[in-house]
């Protein structure tokens, strides 16, 4: 807020006691420290997850094997293997399917809410989207188990309904609210003069959306999609419950898979603290952190780049 600093108030005006000034200084210091807390936590999350697996990561982890081998066999007695490619592809397949659903629905709903509704209808729709976002992931997972599972077996003749399709649909529905709300913000940020100019030229609302708003809000909408992707990659409990447990490269949406997140959640409780297997799970944590960090950073840079241009 540059405006604030231009008229910066003076703290040490005559007539204030030293004690009051000192107390104020202390409070302001505390506020400043809290201000930096988020930075502190992001760094310490990365550090602690990395350090907890450091012995294994530094000494016994073969990075090529870890990233590119599909063999995740951490419990073998003779030949333990820690390849995460199948898990990464599991995450990728479920996330892609989720985005196939969430991107059109999310952007469509964002356009509808932002451009085609007004007043009360708009408010109600926004509340509904917020409530959709509030459904806990364990409830989504439960829905996947008890509703989607039998439905998928019935409709597609799959041997088991806990698969990519199930997890992808759930994740899609879970990512929609974030895409809608960020996408709507992006559309709202386009100045009304753009809309007015376009409508005055005789364009319909839809033409305005396609030819004026989409190009103008392009980066904001892209950021919305990226944040949806980040959400889908990181989701844990719902995919743990809904995608089945087989570590394999999926060949169709009806194959069971296991994602990076679900692997940590299902195995962490059963490993001995400090063992290679335990540390390998932290290595997956580092991988996940890095993945989502890149996705979120790109989203942020895209939004900032757009703001700089305007």
């Amino acid at each position, binding site marked *: *807020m*540059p*405006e*604030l600093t231009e*008229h910066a*108030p003076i*703290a040490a*005006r005559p007539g204030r006691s030293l004690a009051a000034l000192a107390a*104020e200084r202390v409070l*302001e210091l505390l*506020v*400043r420290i809290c*201000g*930096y*807390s*988020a930075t502190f*936590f*992001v760094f310490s*999350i990365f550090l*602690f*997850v990395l350090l*907890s697996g450091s012995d294994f990561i530094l000494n016994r982890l073969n990075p090529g094997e870890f990233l590119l081998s599909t063999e995740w066999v951490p419990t073998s007695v003779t030949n333990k293997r820690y390849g995460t490619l199948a898990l990464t592809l599991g995450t990728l397949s479920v996330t892609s399917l989720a985005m196939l659903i969430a991107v059109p*629905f999310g952007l*469509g*709903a964002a*356009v*509808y809410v932002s451009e085609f509704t007004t007043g009360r209808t708009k408010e109600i729709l926004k*509340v*509904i989207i917020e409530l*959709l976002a*509030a*459904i*806990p*992931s*364990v*409830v989504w997972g*439960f829905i996947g*188990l*008890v509703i989607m599972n039998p439905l998928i077996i019935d409709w597609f003749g799959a041997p088991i309904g806990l698969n990519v399709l199930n997890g992808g649909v759930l994740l899609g*529905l879970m990512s929609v609210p974030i895409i809608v709300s960020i996408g709507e913000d992006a559309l709202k940020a386009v100045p009304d003069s753009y809309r007015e100019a376009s409508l005055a030229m*005789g364009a*319909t*609302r*839809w033409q305005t959306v396609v030819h004026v708003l989409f190009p103008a809000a392009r980066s904001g909408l892209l950021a919305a999609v990226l944040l949806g992707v980040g*959400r889908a*990659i*990181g989701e*844990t*409990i719902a995919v743990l419950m809904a995608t089945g447990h087989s570590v394999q490269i999926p060949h169709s949406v009806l194959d069971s898979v296991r994602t990076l*997140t679900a692997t*940590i*959640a299902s195995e*962490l409780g059963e490993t001995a603290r400090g063992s290679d297997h335990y540390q390998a*799970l*932290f290595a997956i*944590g580092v991988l*996940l*952190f890095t993945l*989502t960090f890149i996705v979120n950073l790109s989203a*942020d840079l895209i939004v900032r780049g757009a703001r700089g241009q305007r």
Partner: protein
Amino acid sequence: MDEAVQLPFAPTDATRRSRRREAIARVFLGAMTAMLVVPLLAILGLLVAEGLPALTWEFLLTSPAAGMTAGGIFPAIVGTLWLVGVSLAVAAPIGVMAAIYLNEYATDNWGTRIINLAIVNLAGVPSIVHALFGVGAFVLFLGLGTSILAASLTLAVMTLPVIIASTKEALAAVPLSFRQACWVLGASRWQTIRHVVLPNSIQGILTGVILQVSRAAGETAPIMFTGAAFYLPFLPQSVQDQCMALSMHLFTLSTQVPGVPEAMPYATALVLLALVMTVNLTSILVRSYLRARRKW
């Protein structure tokens, strides 16, 4: 030819076409939005239909029995309240002060940019990575063990970025002219915040904080390894005990325990959802009431 008389403003074919497209787009987009309402209603309807019959006072107020295939969910409700309460007590002050710093003190420099970037990324850290962090930092490094405290701190770190965001929004809604009027009278920056900015935004801040923290009640992954137990025969006495939690209990009932009567996980899910939704809906309504009532 009948069409000899061309009205000057009659729609041309091109206009008709674009009007038709407009109508189609409106209906299509509206249908897409409406389809998002369907899963929400379907889930609510299903949980109510299947879970309500099992939802008795006895279910709410007794402990699980017979290897969790009978009895109620009382310890899980109590545990969830503990977790949410403690994480609220930790995250709210830090988050609100961080937002005060960002909105009232920070200038637009690279330090602020890094903080904002950190907040975005903290919000995007996968919940299971928060769990790993909780295990590494709170359970082991700080030696808290698997306890309510460790689990709540993990949840607090997780909810921090959303608390900061919603508080910042509430603070930013107070017009700059309010602050300027106060500064002109000779008040310091902190006095202005204390006596003008906070009183004018406190309701918005509280609603936002409660809204965000209620979502922590639904989280499972971060508490799985840091403090939530599958089953405990007693209620937690202090923050050093482990506890059960509704979300964890639903996960356990539906994936780990064989022979659970079908209605039990539905009823548990219904209680969890009702808890989260009630708090959410209330604070959303309060927020829109506050917005409508705003004097400026």
